[in-house]
């Protein structure tokens, strides 16, 4: 299928028609070097990803090309495998670590280039919850996809989210929770935004292992991401909707 045999094998895990087309089209015309980066990322081989990123930059390949054709293509397959329970968090973490090894070299170049971000997102794990793996994965994927992301960390109260909104003026606020016991704090944060008159100013998105679409709807969230990859797609959709509204 592709020039890189290992990546072709990994691509076999992509089984949804729309994704076969979307991810396949994105990979098929890329160079063997980009495919090697994508494959190394899926394997969690941070040394290879870091080394190849440096080599590519030295050869004059643009930071954007490495990001889109190498790192993000690899991460798309990681996202599919994670969603379909082929791999789990440890395997995603080593892929994320490999992505970071590449991003370390290209992020400074991207931020100097002055390209307009896709949108601004404020992220935090809700009050009472100190888990941040899921949130951090989302942040990494959002940044990799061109969003500017502000991170409020863990244990974020409704007041902290509102203060963060005032300070950063994001388009979207993303709330994360790992515990069923802290999930209700998402609803409390949404209610707080209603109470202080900020609800219409920003789009509120939720996610986390125990969170479901039904729960998100009940809490009155604008979007629910069932994985870090899905969170990026939902954030893009929200930005498009906001653009339409503003136009």
């Amino acid at each position, binding site marked *: 299928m592709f020039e890189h045999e290992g990546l072709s094998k990994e691509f076999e895990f992509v089984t949804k028609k729309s994704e076969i087309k979307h991810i396949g089209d994105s990979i098929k015309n890329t160079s063997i070097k980009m495919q090697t980066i994508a494959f190394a990322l899926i394997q969690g081989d941070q040394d290879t990803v870091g080394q190849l990123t440096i080599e590519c930059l030295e050869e004059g390949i643009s930071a954007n090309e490495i990001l889109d054709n190498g790192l993000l293509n690899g991460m798309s397959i990681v996202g599919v495998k994670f969603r379909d329970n082929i791999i*789990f968090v440890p395997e995603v*973490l*080593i892929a994320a670590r490999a992505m970071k090894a590449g991003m370390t070299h290209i992020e400074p170049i991207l931020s100097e280039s002055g390209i307009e971000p896709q949108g601004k997102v404020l992220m935090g794990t809700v009050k009472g919850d100190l888990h941040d793996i899921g949130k951090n994965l989302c942040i990494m994927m959002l940044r990799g996809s061109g969003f500017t992301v502000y991170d409020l960390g863990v244990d974020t109260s409704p007041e902290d989210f509102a203060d963060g909104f005032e300070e950063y003026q994001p388009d979207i606020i993303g709330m994360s929770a790992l515990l069923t*016991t802290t999930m209700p704090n998402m609803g409390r944060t949404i209610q707080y935004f209603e109470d202080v008159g900020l609800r219409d100013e920003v789009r509120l998105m939720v996610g986390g292992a*125990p969170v479901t679409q*039904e729960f998100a709807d009940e809490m009155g969230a604008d979007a629910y991401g069932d994985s870090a990859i899905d969170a990026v797609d939902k954030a893009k959709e929200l930005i498009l909707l906001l653009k339409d509204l503003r136009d």
Partner: protein
Amino acid sequence: MKTMTKKERVFSALNRQEVDRPPVANPTSVATVEMMDLVDAPFPEACRSAELNARLAATEITEFDFDSIAPYFSIIQESSAIGCDMQWEQKDNWPTVRMSNPIWQDASDVKVPKDFLEHKDTKVILDSIKILRKEFGNDIPIIGKTMGPWTLAYHVFGVEKFLLGTIDNPSETKLALEKLKEFTYLFGEAQIDAGADILTVPDHATGDLVSGQYYKTFLQDLHTEMAESFKVPLILHICGQTVDRMPAIAETGMHAFHFDSKNKPEDAMNAVQNKISLVGNINNPETLYSKNTTEVKKEVFDCLNAGVQIIAPECAIPLKTKSENLIAITEGVTDWLSEHNKN
């Protein structure tokens, strides 16, 4: 069939024997803000004072008519005694470990503090069990709780670092778990000595984080050894999707598995093939927290129709759960029995 005591009922269900009615017993926690106000035993004090702890735990019997008492409300008592960085929170939030500030780097750091069982936050549970035993006698089963090594590893090493280690250096992970299990044994045995009849062992190798193969590779043998060593029935608790690892869990020799609402009761029953009792799995964040008694009873019926042996919320319940929804669990069992006996 003659009416059983609560203890007889729970023990029979744990052994998959006949019961006069299916028991309702949450092996994690039913502490709520309403109950904290009712008996004046708020968080976090109720997690740190034996008298308040026992008073709040007793509401499981006095207010909800459940079939057991579980006085360990959170998952952090041992971690506090070990020396983890703690956030004790307030009445409507759970105390928790600041896992972003891990206290240990690797297995060589794992050492049991000399005062582990005398520390305020382990002793509170031991003293509370003694108070409850004295107050309620021998006919009500007291369920203690001792954290498994996997959960303790999250607390002492940090979740991300620990999970990365499972791939970078699995032998080191196994060594760390082997050393951490000493806490599970020490605290579990001390609770049995204090009067606990049953122990819950939460060990969060959840399907939301790791594969079923991980359970087999890292935990199945440790859990089997625990089931052989402890002299009281053990209830393993793992949140999230677990059907893929239930057949392995069922082989450990533990008496019961407390399962999450992400797993359908029929699927869970099929997975364990009557080799272990199931406890669960009323949904917490949606059903108990925000729906009504009719919805709660519907889930009770679903569990009973599938053959689940002990009816319970899927995990420690949200602190602002309404009492009426908890009472509805017991009522749901009564309604199901009336309907069942009619047929």
